[in-house]
């Protein structure tokens, strides 16, 4: 038992010395209760400190450790070795992103896309804090709650074929968050947020492949959010046709 091992094939890329990414193989102890992240940490601590990757909470909520595991976008902190044993496991950085180094991807485009959907409450009238919280019924909370569960792990960007072909596409996670705020009973930012959500880079970019919802580790179902967003954008288009801005 203690002697069982498993092979990890890990994509390596160090910008200071490598002209292109290559695979490196590591033989790692196999433990039934180890996740892929445990194996990567064992490599880093005992065999090769030069291997770089992101992680933090190791409990599936911080969203740092998304990687391609045998070609599929996964959180490595809840992907167990036992799912693959005794076959080797291939670990690569999330696709559809530039690689900073090894398994670390460049986050800049995602942060920009997140800002585009204005993921904050927009109010025309601001309630003084002394007047207490807004009321929100459990039913009103339920309308957007699922889409607020996104941990920004970006597995959906790695899974989405549109992101690969059209890098400006705002993408599943950020769109789902934009729609989360559109659905929030406390929000009054419909017009300014809809400009982004209903734009060419917004919901209409989605071809409804649905892979985003397949890989989402938190069951946010961004594909469903985007479909709702398309309905909302259509209604918005009719409203604007009948009643141009400023007259509403």
């Amino acid at each position, binding site marked *: 038992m203690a002697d069982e091992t498993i092979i990890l094939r890990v994509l390596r890329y160090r910008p200071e010395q490598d002209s292109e990414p290559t695979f490196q193989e590591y033989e790692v102890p196999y433990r039934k209760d180890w996740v892929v992240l445990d194996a990567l940490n064992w490599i880093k601590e005992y065999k090769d400190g030069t291997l770089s990757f992101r992680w933090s909470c190791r409990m599936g909520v911080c969203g740092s450790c998304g990687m391609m595991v045998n070609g599929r976008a996964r959180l490595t902190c809840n992907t167990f070795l036992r799912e693959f044993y005794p076959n080797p496991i291939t670990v690569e950085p999330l696709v559809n992103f530039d690689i900073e180094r090894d398994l670390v991807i460049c986050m800049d485009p995602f942060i920009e896309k997140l800002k585009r959907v204005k993921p904050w409450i927009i109010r025309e009238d601001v309630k003084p804090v*002394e007047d207490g*919280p807004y009321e929100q019924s459990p039913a009103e909370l339920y309308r957007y709650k699922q889409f607020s569960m996104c941990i920004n792990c970006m597995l959906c960007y790695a899974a989405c074929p549109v992101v690969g072909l059209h890098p400006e596409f705002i993408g599943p996670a950020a769109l789902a968050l934009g729609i989360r705020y559109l659905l929030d009973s406390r929000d009054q930012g419909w017009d300014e947020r809809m400009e982004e959500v209903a734009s060419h880079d917004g919901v209409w970019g989605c071809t409804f492949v649905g892979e985003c919802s397949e890989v989402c580790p938190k069951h946010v179902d961004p594909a469903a959010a985007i479909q709702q967003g398309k309905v909302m954008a259509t209604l918005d288009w009719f409203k604007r046709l009948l009643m141009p801005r400023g007259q509403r």
Partner: protein
Amino acid sequence: MAELLKHDVVIVGGGAAGLRAAIAVAERNPNLSVAVVSKIYPMRSHTVSAEGGAAAVIKANDSFEHHIYDTISGADWLADQDAVELFVHEAPKELTLLEHWGCPWSRDPDGTVAVRPFGGMKIERTWFAADKTGFHMLHTLYQTALRYVELTWYDEWFATKLLVDGDRCYGVVALELRTGAIRGITGKAVILCTGGAGRVFPFTTNAITKTGDGMALALRAGVPLKDMEFIQYHPTGLPGTGILITEAARGEGGIMVNKDGYRYLQDYGLGKPLDVNDPRHPVKRTMELGPRDKLSQAFVMEMRKGRTLKGPYGDYVLLDIRHLGEKKINEKLPFVRELARNYAGIDPVYEPIPVRPVVHYVMGGVDTDVDGRTVLDGLYAAGECACVSINGANRLGSNSLTECLVFGARAGHHAAEYVASAPDPNDSVLQKQVEEEAARIRKQFLEKTEGKERLVTVRKDMQNAMEDGVGIYRTEQSVQQALEKVLECRERFKEVYLDDHTVSFNTELISALELECMLDVALAMCHAALARRESRGAHQREDHPNRDDENFLKHSLVVLRDGQPKVEWKDVVITKWPPGERKYGADSGLPTDQK
């Protein structure tokens, strides 16, 4: 050498306290430029892992007095009562602000914010967003902060040193992970919001990032660390991983049993159990809703009596929530179910959850006043890395998220005022410090050509020494042994040789700098634990088993004098609540005149 990156206020850390402070500065004075320096992307911060909730008085059956008394008695009277009063009064406003910013608080049927009970509370007052409260608070704060153009985001920059000119703090030296560049990020005020230090111990709920960085930076700059001997063990972590099972599981009615199925907490002064089907269960401040220190201590006693279960990761007991039923578990504790299924391999709807005490929180931290100010002008701290102190010898569950908001905001507001009148720094003095720090890091780690120690072995030896010597129960001898081991690890650290000598995204270098911080924090913890010759809250000295108000109703301060750690003392602020006996169970709660 690259130029200084100049701002007005520099915030180190992008969790709840740091983001709240950033928004507070921007709201107070939109003309100020604010740097948010975080070693990970802010939405990855450890606030994300907080599950159960955040305390604030909002319901008609509750009162400020109840929250104050619960906090002070929970703290075993080591909290500063002026700070607690202020905290309790500002808490509802801060949680309401989060609500206005979009936090999806769970609701009662009438649309008002719902609350649940937590350990050590006389009245239920914990606001929650199912059992992912920290996650929702953090994302709400981060997304709200994105609207402020005054904020400059230094994402994935690791602060290694405070910049000090004369007797004022003027910024930090920080390493950009992407490029390896070491730069000075300056401002007239620095707010440390780097969180806790659970990773000093081997078995912790804390994320890998919780390495006490801000505490170490302050200590090295001559600022005292307060009450560092008080380490909170949360009674319900998953064996092996240390993943937290929230106290809300007990707040909703979960029970704890030993290997005989017996609710052992009744043997430890926590009251008598009611049947789980009794409508009065769970009784607040009683049994499973006792405070964390007492529950973790009860576990050790059960273990010594041979009444715990044995597993591959040591002894454990069982947290049973089966009687809540699948519907309530899915509605109120979905994350508990997800975590237990993924990491313990059991479904809590059908099986009890194996749990054991696990290092969770550091009550101590950088010594501050109620505005987050330290003894060094221009240096502030807030959140877990600070010690105001409202937590004293034992923090109550769900006070820490609120603390991040209340004191993050206060530090931000005060800093915004302070920078208007503080003198300008001498840039060439700061620039020289940046160059010296960059040279130190290159020489000690990147340009080193040999060394016989591996990072992981030094770290594990330090962690095991701390668990063995400065755990739930301590003695002078056990702490002394831990101290000697920590000192040995500090020597061995000088011999650490890294595999990675490159500059771009060198995470091994970051791990080394983090271990350097942890070795400082561990040293402070050992010295404080040795000096406090009494038992109070989370600090249980078996050689001094009683509380000693005559000699130790005081905060310990560990400060470096000529490079050597010294322990000094500071009085606890008592306003209206004279030290009394902590009572839980039937006669728990407020003194009779306040019932």
